[in-house]
């Protein structure tokens, strides 16, 4: 247990080992550790970002879905409104047309009646004249008595 040169030798060996450790052992290990730490941190970051993105996307999808539902409902509503309107219109026009047709028919009938009345009157007046001729046994000059016949036809 004497103190001797070993002391110095050991100190030198120690210094060399520490130097070697500092130069060639510590930096690569530390660098690897730090890089891995960074990598893990980045990974976690990306994961949380992805989760956030997913949430956002889901929200967006929900929003879009809601909007489209609303739109569809609106379109349906419009279509229904429009169809009732169309039915209403059709009904109105049909009624008008019908009325118009009825009026036409009525006026035609009236015309027909008038014409028939006219004819009837002419025939009756002729008959009356014939009858009168027969009764009188003399012919009535149409030219002479035209005025009288016309007056008679008008009175009928």
């Amino acid at each position, binding site marked *: *247990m*004497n*103190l*001797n*040169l*070993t*002391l*110095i*030798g*050991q*100190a030198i*060996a*120690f*210094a060399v*080992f*520490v130097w*070697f*450790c*500092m130069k*060639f*052992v*510590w*930096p*690569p*290990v*530390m*660098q*690897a*550790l730090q*890089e*891995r730490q960074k*990598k893990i941190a980045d990974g976690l970051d990306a994961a949380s970002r992805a989760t956030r993105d997913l949430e956002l996307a889901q929200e967006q999808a929900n929003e879009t879905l809601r909007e489209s539902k609303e739109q569809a409902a609106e379109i349906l509503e419009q279509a229904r409104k429009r169809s009732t309107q169309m039915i209403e219109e059709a009904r109105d026009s049909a009624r008008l047309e019908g009325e118009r047709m009825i009026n036409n028919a009525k006026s035609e009938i009236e015309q027909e009646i008038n014409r028939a009345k006219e004819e009837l009157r002419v025939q009756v007046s002729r008959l009356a004249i014939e009858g009168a001729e027969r009764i009188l046994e003399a012919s009535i000059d149409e030219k002479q008595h035209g005025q009288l016949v016309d007056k008679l036809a008008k009175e009928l």
Partner: protein
Amino acid sequence: MAGTNPTPTEYIQHHLQNLTFGRHPEHGWSIAHSAQEASEMGFWAIHLDTMGWSVALGVIFLMIFRKAGMMATTGVPSGLQNFVELMVEFVDNSVKETFHGKSRVIAPLSLTIFCWVFLMNLMDLVPVDFLPMLAQKFGGFFGADPEHVYFKVVPTTDVNATLGMSLSVFALVIFYTIRAKGFTGFIGDLTLHPFNSPNKLIQALFVPVNFVLEAVTLLAKPISLGLRLFGNLYAGELIFILIAIVGLWQLPLHFTWAVFHLLVITLQAFIFMMLTIVYLSMAVEQH
């Protein structure tokens, strides 16, 4: 066992003697053949076993860690890299918790101390006769007298090794003190505490008292640091040697003590590292 039939005292003494190479006043440069010859060599002698084992263990440690460092990837670490990273992170955390200054040296220094001291301590768990007997056979092969081939396997049971490390740490402590506080700050640390007074005259009287107290405090650091490790390991080694004497009963005893000692060697390596960090952080921090 050393020699033919050593007495227990001889056996123990033989085990506690280093393989010393130095200049003997009579025999010149040679390997010491006895404890007496070794001590006659004085300061200019070197313990070949201590140096050999400590350097070999240091190289093993650095090679393993260097290999792991070279292979280090940022992906999922495999076995060796995992272990090395675990050690590095453990040491790095210990340093960060205690040392608040900025230094590129202190973390690798702590790692080196922890691993190297641990490996040197670990040699204590190799059965006490195993390597010395190999060395005796080896020495005998080269014509040396086996009885005089001394071989001490655990470098940290050599006070030279532990003091060599603790004095290096001490030099670093002084270097950091001066770098952080300047030379005057260092002198001020030594002379202006713990007693001080606003009165200049009384302060002048306090200076020598402070200096004595602070000098003892300062010098106690490396000496206690080195001797603590040495004492623990020396005692542990001695108990292993004593257990080796008791015959067949040594097997359970040996096992029990080895299990217990496993705790001691780890703890001592950790303590050496932590105290180094603490001393260095004290050197950097202001009072």
